């Protein structure tokens, strides 16, 4: 089975928010098989490295198979915390979107059955 290198934005939902100086990110898979793939590919270490230039870390991951979701809590991510931060994204609302840049290797048949999470104008020709 051929695989594709695919950005998470193609098939995942993500929302993020703050608690103190930590950012709290939820990543949602569309189905069980994709959830298992994310569980293997999107580790706490990888997420920590992905944000290494913006957040001190460490990153902790929690698994929610009942919701087909992964939760990441990244410490030291908000420039000291919302009320004292110089960051425009002082509440970490955009970290979820940022995580969707990450790519994973995905079997073509799995990708074919995932809903397309791109706005029609962003899908290209």
């Amino acid at each position, binding site marked *: 089975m051929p695989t594709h290198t695919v950005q998470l934005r193609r098939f995942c939902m993500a*929302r993020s*928010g*703050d608690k103190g100086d930590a950012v709290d990110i939820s990543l949602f898979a569309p189905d069980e098989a994709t959830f298992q793939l994310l569980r293997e590919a999107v580790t706490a270490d990888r997420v920590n490295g992905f944000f290494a230039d913006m957040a001190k870390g460490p990153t902790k991951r*929690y698994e*929610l198979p009942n*919701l087909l979701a992964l939760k990441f809590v990244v410490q030291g991510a908000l420039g000291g915390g919302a009320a004292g931060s*110089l960051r425009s994204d002082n509440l970490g609302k*955009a970290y*979820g*979107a940022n995580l969707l840049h990450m790519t994973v290797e995905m079997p073509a048949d799995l990708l074919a059955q995932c809903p397309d999470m791109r706005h029609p104008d962003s899908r290209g020709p």
Partner: protein
Amino acid sequence: MKSVRIGAAQAFYGDKLKPAIDMARNAKVDYLCFDCLAELTLAILQKDRQKNPALGYTRDVIPVMKALLPICLPQGIRLITNAGGIHPEAAAEAIAKVAQELGLKLKIATVVGDDVLPRLNAFKSQGHVTAMLGAPSDPLGGLPPMTFANVYLGARPILEALHAGADLVLTGRTTDTAQYLAAAAHGLGWSLDDLDKAAQGVIAGHLLECTAQATGGNFSGAWWEVEGLENLGYPIADVYEDGSFVVGKTPGSGGLVSVDTIKEQLLYEIHDPSNFISPDVIVDMTGIRLEQAGPDRVKVSGAKGRAGPPTLKVVAGYPAGFVGEGRVVYTWPDALPKAKKFESLLRKAIEDDGIKIQEFRAEYFGVNAIHEGNAKLPSDELPEVVVRVAVRTATEREAQRVGRHFPPLGIAGPPHLTGLSGISGARELMGVASFLVPREQIEPHVQVRMQAL
């Protein structure tokens, strides 16, 4: 099966009022709950109270109550809000005045006792301050004196107020979910010691407390398919005796309640899903089941509860300097190199003015201001770039001077600078410290004050 209907009216200080009015008129709710206090909000209210000792509550509570009390009281809808902020007594006084002007009769309950600032030194010297899991062992060590310190209260004092017949319950710092759990427990006769039911009540509150975020707002799925965003309805929960509940929204409103919109809000800002701590119950979300129960209706069940912790969480704030900032626009051609040159010239001008820079942050909107190193840079030249510079200083005076150095670079820097309207004055920054205090130091001091108008 017996049920109660609880509605979410406000998610933050400054939330829209119309969805709450529509809900009060059309949704036949038994309770309307408001969460007006983000972590950041207390810092804002502290600044208000410094300027005027009669303030310190979320000031939109006045127009909110003016609009909602006349609709809710005749229907017997009870209102529960933490709009009291860091000064609930002052909020109660202001609302009482409004009610009298409108000729309304009601019972207001004010919950006090969350403000622990006067006792902070005693807590420290008696060894009552402990760190949160994973935080530095001395949470207040090396920090300047706190300017506010409030403990997160749970549902118990609110429930007591409802049992005493309050039409409006006004609190200061509570957990975001306490209003909702108290409403469910009051309406269904639950004991808060029935931990699985209490856990479901907390989850209902957590799903509702961000209002629009459960009903299709800020939805990261197919957001373009959500209909009626211009008239987005706020969420309601029909909570059943057995603890299960169904989330819906105001009839006739826009938006979407689906398993996807609900799961996205369920995990919002919760940290450890098996250990979601509130004063009343520790919730495990890992067994929660979500089922579509009809159009715009999702059934939620399966939360498990353990007894609440022996400590309560305090959130405290301290001064963290000031920021002066501004943003300007550079256009094609060479938009980004021009903006970068502007940044270096601005920094030099600020330093030459004698402003002591504690932290300097430059962001390039349209390039990588938010996504930083993960942003994919376009290969073409950019049509335009917004450059924002923010500078942290020790004094307000220095922060005020930062903005003055932006306009001269329009004539003395790279060409084609425009959009000079985005320069602000000084803004005070606050640091936030969170720590734990034994609950027996807090709970005996919590009071419910009833006032009949």
